[in-house]
């Protein structure tokens, strides 16, 4: 098996890339995709630890995360479509009413 450090390192790297995307991009759809990437990085850590411990709990948790990610995408893209109808834009700068 590959060293666990490398698996967790890959997971952390993908999470940081996703964080950078969610923080710096202005396109709402790309921000949602970056959040998907962060969820996937967490999934990778779960699978790596499940492999290390030799138990399935991590796999079950990954299945739950996939379910939550699917829900998040469905609702999030519903919001994006409704937003585009009302504002003709998916730029987060145009919908900053709730931003401090």
């Amino acid at each position, binding site marked *: *098996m*590959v060293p*666990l*450090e*490398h*698996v*967790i*390192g*890959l997971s*952390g790297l*993908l999470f*940081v*890339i996703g*964080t*950078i*995307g969610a*923080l*710096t991009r*202005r*396109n709402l*759809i*790309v921000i*949602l*995709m*970056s959040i998907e*990437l962060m969820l*996937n990085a967490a*999934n*990778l850590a779960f*699978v*790596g*630890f*499940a*492999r*290390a*411990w*030799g138990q*399935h*709990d991590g*796999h*079950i948790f990954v*299945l*739950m995360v*996939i*379910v*939550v*990610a699917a*829900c*998040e*995408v*469905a*609702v999030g*893209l*519903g*919001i*994006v*479509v*409704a937003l585009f109808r009302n504002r003709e834009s*998916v*730029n987060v700068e145009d919908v900053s009413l709730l931003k401090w």
Partner: protein
Amino acid sequence: MTAQAFFFYFAAALAVVSALGMVLNFRNTVAAAMSLVVTMIGLAIVYVVLEAHLVAALQIMVYAGAIVVVFLFVVMLLNLRSDTFHPARQRLLKAAGALLALGLTAAFLSLMPTALPTVQELPEGFGGYRAVGLALFTRFLLAFEVSSLLLLAAMVGAVVLAKRRID
């Protein structure tokens, strides 16, 4: 280098490069979504190396097959194929993002050597549909049932949100 290690590092490089391709692609949202598909496939290969066969299959089916397709569907429905927005101009936001990324990496690297468990021997049939299914339908049955409720709520919510007018 064993075949396992080769596939792991190959898929890891693939996932990281395509993830960067998604985040840094300012021109074309469709290409960003396709990069996300490549990331998901790379992660599925990593899952196979880590003996999580069922999770790898579900990763391909749900992420590459369903979630990214919904993304593409919305991008094309709203005709956002060419992304005309520029990344944020604010220096402060960029600096905060870079700082946060660096801080996360540093915290991570300092904690990692002491926090990891030693790798255990694997039981027979680890990560297959039988073993994971048994755990899912016995110990984690409640979580499984609750997730169906969550999916129903998300489905109703998405339909209501995307509706033109609520009667």
